[in-house]
């Protein structure tokens, strides 16, 4: 459905594209904005920690919208693959009541997405998030 490469300067274009696709797929407006935010955070994480560029693949079934963000880096910071040398929170961050970490965007994505899976390896990292097309909570 969508296969797009991105870098730091094309994050905005990526956001607009994702929002348009999610809306076209039938996501309610608020949820389409969530999809855009989640993809942006994953893409920004890939740009910042995964080698500067990445790739988004987005597809939709009648049940869910699936977004896969991959990057060529060894392991994006904040992902749950505990590789040696991963960044630690800075000393300033530790005094905050809100626990900042470099991969805080990933935490955000976990709050928004219905499902998330992370694959890390020497060839790069791949995060797949899924959003239900029908809102849960309706009996």
């Amino acid at each position, binding site marked *: 459905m969508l296969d797009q490469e991105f870098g*730091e*300067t094309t*994050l*905005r274009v990526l*956001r607009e594209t994702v929002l348009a696709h999610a809306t076209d797929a039938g996501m*309610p*407006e*608020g*949820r389409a*904005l*969530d999809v855009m*935010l989640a993809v*942006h*955070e994953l893409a*920004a994480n890939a*740009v*910042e920690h995964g080698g500067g560029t990445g790739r988004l693949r987005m597809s939709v079934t009648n049940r869910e919208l699936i977004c896969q963000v991959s990057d060529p880096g060894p392991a994006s910071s904040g992902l749950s693959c505990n590789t040696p040398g991963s960044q630690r929170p800075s000393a*300033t961050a530790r*005094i*905050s*009541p*809100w626990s*900042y970490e470099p991969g*805080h*965007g990933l935490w*955000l994505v976990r*709050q*928004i997405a219905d499902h998330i899976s992370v694959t890390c390896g020497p060839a790069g990292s791949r995060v797949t998030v899924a959003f239900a097309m029908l*809102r*849960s*909570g309706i009996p």
Partner: protein
Amino acid sequence: VSLLGIAVESQQFSVVMRLSGEADLSTLGQLRDALNDQISGGARQLIIDLSGLRFADSSSIRALTDAHLALRAQGGTLELVDPQPNVARILVLLGIDQVLTVRPQPDSGTAGAGLGCRLRLTLAGRRISGCRRGSGAQPHAGPRVR
């Protein structure tokens, strides 16, 4: 051309920084520089007007909360004012409204009590319904136990 506009206006007792456009990783250095200018300049009350900001990501929000910590360390304050729904949503998701002051309107006079509630109720999204603070609000009922 930057996605982010930053306009700074010094008032008698405070500095208002108006953000417009979109704040993301590509504008992070610009935002941090502007905030650091105010911190190193000894600002005591920094008001960030978010009314013109259409999008902010977690790195930009983190720049704001870092500035809040730095200002607080030198006896100052930082307030966020009038976020658009899209930005308000990320503030609520990250729990920022629990960490620093977020006001609905500039010069509204009233403190932010109930704002979190208002944001939660007006924003679409699952886990945001209900009011965690504010007196008199009915807590949102979870799934009924049968």
